[in-house]
């Protein structure tokens, strides 16, 4: 299927198109709280939104965190600069869980609501990015994933979400959560759009020494591998739909096989150990005078001043700072942090072996989108366990894509496909082929022509 970017460029825009689109989008924003910031007027061209933890020159970028309120970066993140350089037009900053700390998109003020039904969560942490993609016809979202922040909301909002191999897209200008896990990625309505945008934003960057410039492959796999441990604790409705989906794929010539990675469920605690350890050091720079919200009383000593500044952190951020500081403590560092890093090495090897045979396929999430109050009532361990399927590829840096494969009532069901490092194009090819025969459904089409 051709990209909607090409389709948009070819279509004539009627008089007042951009004004009308901006008005419709503003109405959607009133209803679903998608954007933290939107421009007063709309630049002409294909629109892209940017997650609120990615810097846009002159536009407040707070990662939806109160402590960063008012921070206005004087530069564009590399991904944003490259998008603008190729003629894409910036339409707004999308809301997210504070600093990316969340699975459901509800850890921020006036959180986004799922456009399919606002009583339900969008998924997180790239909550607004998924909602924007679900309502806007000609648009792509620049999003970011640390442990599943692209796949989860893409699945819950019924869009395509792509997380590249770690290091292929520069992180310069990203308000970091966990440096060894953060990846800037893309959400769109079609895989062809994702491929187009990926080609724009990937590639080495002098400002990010962890950004890799190397060939990206499109090695097709005909074997689809179900890792048995990833299929535990999945809702029956999701399992039944997924079985029907894999049967369809078999009828199209794919071979579906089962493999075992016995320790893969331990990827979640390992992920939370590493991510909180890195987050607790990253958040130490928000001291109350350099970025964002200001603590005014300079007569205080540094410790009191810093402690007062940090009172603006949300509950989940405080929890993660405490956990991260604890696991890095000298007395327990080898038990938690170093052990988690060793476990990551084991996981990279075990998943790498399986991926050399074929794609790993699974539902993206073990549940259908919950209602907002249900998600808010989960204790942290239960909430973290919802990332059981999205965490392994994120922890090991493998590229993955989530795309709709079925619907239950109005709600989409997302499948996650994982491949080897640097085989990113193969994911877009697979999802693109799926889209030839399966039409994604969208309730809203703001900006249609």
């Amino acid at each position, binding site marked *: 299927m051709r990209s909607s970017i090409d389709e948009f460029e070819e279509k004539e825009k009627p008089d007042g198109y951009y004004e009308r689109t901006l008005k419709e989008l503003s109405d959607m924003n009133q209803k679903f709280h998608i954007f933290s910031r939107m421009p007063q007027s709309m630049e002409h061209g294909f629109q892209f939104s940017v997650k609120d933890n990615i810097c846009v020159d002159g536009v407040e970028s707070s990662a939806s965190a109160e402590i960063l309120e*008012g*921070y*206005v970066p*004087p*530069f564009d993140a590399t991904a944003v600069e490259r998008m603008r350089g190729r003629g894409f037009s910036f339409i707004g900053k999308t809301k997210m869980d504070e600093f990316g700390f969340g699975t459901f998109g509800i850890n921020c003020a006036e959180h986004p609501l799922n456009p399919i039904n606002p009583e339900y969560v969008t998924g997180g942490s790239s909550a607004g990015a998924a909602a924007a993609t679900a309502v806007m016809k000609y648009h792509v979202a620049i999003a970011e994933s640390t442990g599943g922040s692209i796949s989860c909301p893409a699945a819950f909002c019924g869009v395509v979400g792509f997380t590249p191999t*770690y*290091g292929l897209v520069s992180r310069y200008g990203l308000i970091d959560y966990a440096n*060894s*896990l953060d990846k800037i990625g893309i959400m769109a309505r079609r895989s062809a759009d994702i491929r187009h945008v990926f080609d724009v934003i990937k590639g080495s960057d002098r400002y990010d*020494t962890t950004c*890799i410039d190397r060939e990206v492959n499109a090695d097709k796999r005909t074997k689809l591998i179900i890792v048995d441990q990833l299929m535990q604790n999945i809702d029956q409705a999701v399992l039944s739909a997924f079985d029907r989906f894999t049967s369809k794929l078999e009828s199209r010539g794919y071979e579906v096989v089962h493999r075992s990675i016995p*320790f893969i469920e*331990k990827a979640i*605690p390992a992920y*939370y*150990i590493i991510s909180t350890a890195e987050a607790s050091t990253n958040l130490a720079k928000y*001291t*109350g*005078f*350099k*970025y964002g919200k*200001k*603590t005014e009383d*300079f007569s*205080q*000593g*540094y410790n009191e*001043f*810093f*402690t007062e500044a*940090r*009172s603006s952190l949300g509950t989940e951020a*405080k*929890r993660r*700072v*405490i*956990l991260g*500081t*604890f*696991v890095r403590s000298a007395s327990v560092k080898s038990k*938690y942090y*170093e*052990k*988690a*890093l*060793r*476990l*990551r*090495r*084991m996981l*990279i*090897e075990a998943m790498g072996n399986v991926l050399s045979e074929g794609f790993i396929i699974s539902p993206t999430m073990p549940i259908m989108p919950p209602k907002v109050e249900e998600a808010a009532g989960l*204790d*942290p*361990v239960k909430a*973290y366990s919802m990332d059981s399927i999205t965490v392994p590829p994120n922890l*090991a*840096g*493998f590229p993955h894509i989530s795309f709709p494969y079925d619907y239950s009532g109005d709600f989409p069901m997302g499948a996650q496909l994982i491949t080897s*490092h640097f085989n990113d194009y193969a994911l877009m090819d697979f999802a693109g082929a799926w889209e030839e025969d399966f039409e994604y459904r969208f309730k809203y089409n703001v900006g249609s022509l």
Partner: protein
Amino acid sequence: MDDAAFDRMLRICRLRLSGSERDRIKADIDKVITYFDTIESVDCDGYSPAYQPVEMPARTREDRTDVFRESDRLLKNSKTYRFYMVGPKI
């Protein structure tokens, strides 16, 4: 984590929690640490720590000074005195 250890952690983190918030977060932290303990059952002997998920060459930049042309705008994010950011006493 006992109360004394938790309070010590709060001091290191420079976090001050109110009574009910402290009790709630401490209970959550205890549950999560118990969950973290489950990685003990995995035998990782022979595996070195993976600090990055993808092997990458250690790249360095040329050791030279660049002029950041937007420093005036950068300083607008903080209270300033001349071209210094104003901060608390150390």
